């Protein structure tokens, strides 16, 4: 998968992988402590929150790689003018949805006040859920900064699914080639 904005991509890679490793450790600790007879009370809640964090930061990463699932058959079947018009409409919808998410995600934080997580009393709920508006801003950033390049793909008529398949095959071939070299 190609990434559009390199620094943002690297930042999100580090963030999401750290959370993923933390999640694996938390679940393994959960099993170990349960079998040793002292179940961890925070295990379920913390693991579920980590999953949500991976989801939203990872969604921003996926946005930076234009990898979100979608159907582009109609768009790429149109002549150039139609493609450009549809592209503009799609971008407007995407930004509107993300903007509403940022606004609403931010306003609910005020409602939480001094609320904390149920099992981890020092962790404010506002921090836990603050990930949503932050990730939505990152998604808007990725979408905006990648727009010129995506626009050129739409002009040329190269759809993302074909690009993904090309890239995956090229990568698998490259890996096979290095294996042959090692032999």
């Amino acid at each position: 998968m190609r990434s559009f904005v390199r620094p943002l991509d690297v930042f999100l890679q580090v963030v999401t992988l750290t959370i993923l490793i933390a999640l694996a450790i938390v679940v393994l600790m959960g099993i170990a402590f349960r079998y040793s007879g002292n179940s961890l009370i925070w295990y379920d809640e913390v693991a579920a929150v980590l999953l949500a964090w991976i989801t939203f930061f990872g969604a921003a990463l996926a946005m930076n790689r234009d990898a979100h699932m979608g159907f582009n058959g109609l768009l790429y079947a149109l002549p150039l003018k139609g493609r450009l018009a549809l592209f503009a409409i799609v971008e407007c919808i995407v930004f509107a949805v993300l903007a509403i998410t940022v606004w609403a995600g931010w306003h609910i934080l005020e409602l939480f006040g001094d609320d904390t997580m149920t099992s981890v009393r020092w962790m404010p709920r506002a921090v836990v859920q603050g990930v949503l508006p932050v990730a939505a801003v990152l998604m808007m950033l990725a979408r905006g900064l990648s727009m010129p390049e995506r626009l050129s793909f739409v002009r040329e008529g190269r759809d993302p699914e074909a690009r993904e398949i090309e890239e995956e095959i090229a990568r698998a071939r490259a890996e096979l080639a290095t294996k042959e070299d090692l032999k």
Partner: protein
Amino acid sequence: MTEALVLLSMFVMIGIGVPIALSIMASALIGVWLLNGSLGFLNAALSVFDGATKFPLIAIPLFVLAGALMNTGGISTRLIAFVSALVGFVRGGLAMVNVGVSLFFAEISGSAVADVAATGSVLIPAMKKKGYKPRFAAALTSSTASLAIIIPPSIPMILYGALSGTSIVQLFVAGIIPGLLGAILLMAMCYYFAVRYNLPREEGFDLCRLWHATREASWAMILPVVILGGIFGGFVTATEGAALAVITALFIGVFIYREIDLPKLYHALVDGVVQTSIVMLLVATSAVLGLYLTETEMPQKLAASITDLTTNKLAVLMIINIFLLLVGMVLHGAAAIILTVPIFMPLVNQLGIDPVQFGILLTLNIALGQQTPPVASVLVTACSIAKTDVWATTRTNLPFIAVLVLVLLLVTYVPAISLTLVNLFY
């Protein structure tokens, strides 16, 4: 009426190319705004976050992590060698190897495209070299890869289980017999073609080689034993089984085979996280749509209008099968599950259809959907590796698709096929 328009707006947005997760979110936002104004937006922000905190879904990133460790730690190559030594001597051996390998690699990286690219790049050129027709190689690779999703661990099953509140462990158990049945039928089909077109054997049966491959792969084979044994034995949940798989794969890769390639592992992990988040964002946004649907009681109304028509279980299952087949032609698997489960579940419960059986039926439909163009990413990937035309390959694929349809019909009409093992154990 308004509900129908809201859903229609979602399909229009998907149709013009808005990412599916954002189309779901957009139509759900319209819906909650119509009901409660801007207060609805705040509610939506709460549910989209809650939607991403479903505990059973933690199994998805963990299985993806385990898969990345297996692929980069030398476990996968040993499993391929083992399968090859086991079935390679039969006529059409390479085709059999293809079926066997796919069973092990079921959606292991979280992306069906990446898996088919990985196994297909090895097997399709090898098959072409041995005189198999490229179209045959592409069609078989594509169909076996799809069958693999009903064999545990399966991401579509985890999704369905979490969304419908069905036991993921029971779904995993229920997938075993239909999965093996499908594999045997596909192998039988390969044997028929092998005899008819005089396809070659891979090599003579060599007990010594088999012994060597088995010994080499014995550590690798501990992995399914640990995961499935732990889960089926009731020692751990599906999620914890996934975490055990991570630690076992890490142990084998670092201490036994010592082949873990760090840059490749990093790359595989990042790709895995992206794939996980793509699916999870769909789950999260569909929670907002679910909020709207619940308030408007639309699924219940739909259930009522179908049960007015007929209350015959088999007839309703047939209607659902046909609907899912059409949905699968234009939507990717995870999106199809996320959109249809909340709508169909009240109907399934009302008619007393076993939710485990329904889960297997749904997953098989997803497998079929990956084989039916225009949206058939698994098939398209196999075709571009083999350099064949998608529609021509689909013609060659028809017998294999027929096998998948046959398994689907058996699961639909003979509940015992999916439920016998479940009833035996639970």
